[in-house]
């Protein structure tokens, strides 16, 4: 019995090392905690977020905290992190009314949620759970396809297609409140394309595409983060002439 309890203690200690609690984090840098929920598999690609943040740090001026964080919607520290990531590949239990209320406020007053279906299947059980959750979250505001002129497609890279580890849908969906997109949902398993193993190798092969598709998925991740931090900055008049000219050249090629 003592051996077993020691083993449980070591595992939980390891768990806390791998996934420290949110309250331990550095708030000046960008941290993206992953939302913990009941049922299903809330973390199919444990290194996805850290890997993406590594790319963000390498490619942009954003200061990041790559330490993997997990957070419950009921966590009092939730509002220290205006960007959270919800992923999975299985059906999960519905959030409580209190948690939904908290998430609704969180998104309405400045927060951002990226939902990523890691199942790489169309109409997956995770997809069903997500849509049920969003229906309960914003019954009056349906999920809508994000149009190609959205700032997300030009916040850092100029992007003209939506990819992932497997392209289930050629689009992302989102919810907009007062002109700001507060929630983005992708069915293309972004996390699968971002995740790396302990040796720094890509954890998963890209289905139906090669490294270009992975690169585009990383760029999309960078753009989503950049959008959360700068909003529609790239739609300011000062940027438009150059961006439009580059887009024109890109289309003419």
């Amino acid at each position, binding site marked *: 019995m003592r051996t077993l309890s020691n083993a449980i203690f070591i595992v939980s200690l390891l768990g806390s090392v791998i996934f420290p609690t949110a309250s331990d984090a550095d708030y*000046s840098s960008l941290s993206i905690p992953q939302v913990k929920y009941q049922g299903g598999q809330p973390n199919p690609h444990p290194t996805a977020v850290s890997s993406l943040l590594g790319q963000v740090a390498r*490619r942009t001026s954003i200061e990041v905290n790559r330490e993997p964080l997990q957070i419950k919607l009921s966590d009092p520290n939730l*509002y*220290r992190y*205006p960007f959270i990531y919800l992923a999975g590949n299985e059906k999960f239990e519905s959030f409580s009314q209190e948690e939904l209320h908290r998430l609704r406020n969180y998104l309405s*007053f*400045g927060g951002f949620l990226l939902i990523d279906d890691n199942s790489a299947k169309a109409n997956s059980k995770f997809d069903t759970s997500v849509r049920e959750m969003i229906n309960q979250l914003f019954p009056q505001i349906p999920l809508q396809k994000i149009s190609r002129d959205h700032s997300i497609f030009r*916040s*850092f890279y100029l992007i003209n297609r939506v990819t992932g580890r497997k392209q289930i849908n050629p689009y992302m969906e989102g919810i907009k409140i007062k002109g700001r997109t507060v929630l983005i949902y992708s069915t293309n398993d972004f996390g699968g394309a971002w995740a790396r193993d302990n040796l720094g190798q890509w954890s998963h092969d890209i289905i139906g595409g090669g490294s270009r598709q992975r690169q585009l998925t990383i760029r999309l991740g960078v753009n989503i983060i950049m959008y959360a931090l700068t909003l529609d900055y*790239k739609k300011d008049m000062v940027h438009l002439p150059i961006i439009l000219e580059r887009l024109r050249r890109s289309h003419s090629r």
Partner: protein
Amino acid sequence: MNILIEWFGLDPDQFNEVAMNMVAKDLSLVWILALVVAPLALWFFWTSLKRIQSPIRKIFLIALRALTFAVLVFMLLKPELEFKKSHTLKNSIAVLLDDTKSMSIKTFPSETPRIEFVRRTFEKNRNMLESLKEKFQVDYYFASSQINPTSHAELGNRYRPKKAVTDLENTFSQLRKRYEGKSLQGVMLFSDGADLAMEPETVSPEMLALLADWEGPVHTFQAGSNEMFMDLAIEELDSADFGFIHQPVRLTVTISASNMGNKNIPLVLKEGDTILLSRIVEVREGQNQYPVEMEFTPGALGKRIYTLTVPHFAGESVATNNRRDFQVKVIRDRIRVLHLNGRPAWDSRFLREVLANHPKVDLLSFFILRTMGDDVASPTSELSLIPFPTNLLFSDYLNSFDLIVFQNFSYEPFIDKKYLRNINNYVKQGGAFMMVGGELSFQGGGYERTAIEAILPVQLERTSQPFIGESFHLQRGKSLLRHPILQLEKESSANAKAWQDLPELNGVNAGLKPRKNAHVLAEFDKGNKNYPVLVAGRVGEGRSIVMATDSAWNWNFRRVGEGGSGRHYYKLWNNLIAWLTDDPATRLLQLETDKERYEEGEDTLLRIRVLQEDYNPSIGIEVNLTIKSREGEEITETIKTDNNGEAAHQWTPQREGFYTVKVKVDVDGDKREADVGFSVFSETAEFQKPKVNETLLKRIAEVSGGRYEVLTEKTDLSAIKFPNPKVEVKTHSKSISLWDNWWTYGLILTFLFLDWFTRRKSGLS
């Protein structure tokens, strides 16, 4: 008649007339009785008296019944005798004398003012007017946009051309109301017809309708004429009361010219002695009006007074209409903010939301999205990044910004050091600068010993750790609790609670030493060491603020998470923007007038507020106040501030024009000045349409059946005629009922008794 009056016991001296009136209102019963019941009754009488043999008795009874019936009808008509006293009334004549300013305009070649023609006519026709009084009640009125009663005797002293507006339609409406129920048999109107409400050569339908059913004739007498009338005027000027700084203000001007010949006339717009704009108006024979569009761009804030002039030529009838002064309150349309972010982060994202959603802010923001060391793994053509337009921002357009914010921004390698000097000059000349903290701010951004450090309210000390990642609760500076930046709530206890409830901050820039005259509004009190976090200071004419943390967004988003709202975060930023951009409410010496413009003779009220450096009221401070007119007249007063640091001064300008008020105070050696302008207007609209309106005067006479005449030295009013019908007026009366008395009822009863008695005697029941 006297016998009748005496019969009813009345005094014959009190009554001179008698009349019988039937006062029954509803006569239908009488008609039914007369037309239906009477024939039936006659038939009934005849048949019911068949058994009476004596024809005399039969006729007697029928006569009795007919008389009873007649008395009954008489009663139903309710007759009354009205005894009354009445006398004959004099009909009224109204004499209207135009006393508006246009009556002072001279007529050429005699150079006689229009009003003088009226005076001379009255002088010459004195006897006629006196004799008119014998037949009529003659009432005199001054007429402008309203009527004011006067008398013939008072004309010499009171008849002056001083009223602001001619509005004859309103004048006649008032006249009609005044004589309602009275007998007004005619009007004599002495005027130039220069009615501001009427278009030239036209008469409004309302005016024509009013005159069409006028009881007596309206005789119109034209004072002055347009013969040899020479005038150049700024007839109309349409400009907005408000304008925006550096934005064009549009003026729509109408120049009118009469008998000016062919000339090219300069129309000049000035502010003080500075010519802002000039247009040449080509005046040609045969054209009276010249519309001109002008645009000018105000370069300074506040109430600005502008003058529009055309030259004054010899022989012009009116000199005052060659110049128009007007006032434009020049305000900021938007506060133009340049917001530079060293890197995308939550603090900059939430601040951008504040600035982008601020209704008065015009935001230009730049985020440094990549540094030289970043590997974007992509060609530039696949990036949305644009080159940072340093030269445009810090050389060409620098002065167009009202506020520059550096947020966690290191100037190298984006801004050449020489441009930091430009920013320094921009602030000293009245601009505003704010540095928001973070690892890339202050020493982290390499600002030590730069021109930027010189404009900060803090000095940058050498430190090994320029940014400390500690959590702390911000403490307000105890001596600056009234500072406008710190007012999150109006009431002081609510404000204290608001600050207390703000979430803690994480991270502070260290090594900042407040300058001597800077205000440390809030700090991180670590016990053994205080870190200034919010520091404000004045630099030359400009203002500068330091916020030494990159976690102010906690007061927005985290506050929501704690069950509050981001309201105080927004309020703090609004306060910061207001203070930085020198909002009048944040000044230490505030001066204002209770109105933008005053009418001639109206009291002006000047309010002054003097505050100490810490925004507490300056009590008992001497305020030297100078009011200066544009003509150079000067009034100086010294007043003292009360317990609220406030003082007021009331003053009545003696004449129209533009005035400047300058106040000077000395608060503990700090000499301050403020000024404000206001205008006093005397209505001169009469001179904008100065010509005699013959058409109007002719039409008034024509429609009302009167006579139109141009006043000359020889004008004879004796030919003027008015109808004079006899009008009687009842002074008192007494009515006596002829039916509602015992005599009438007794007569009916007597007739009925005789009928009964005769029938009994004839053997009937």
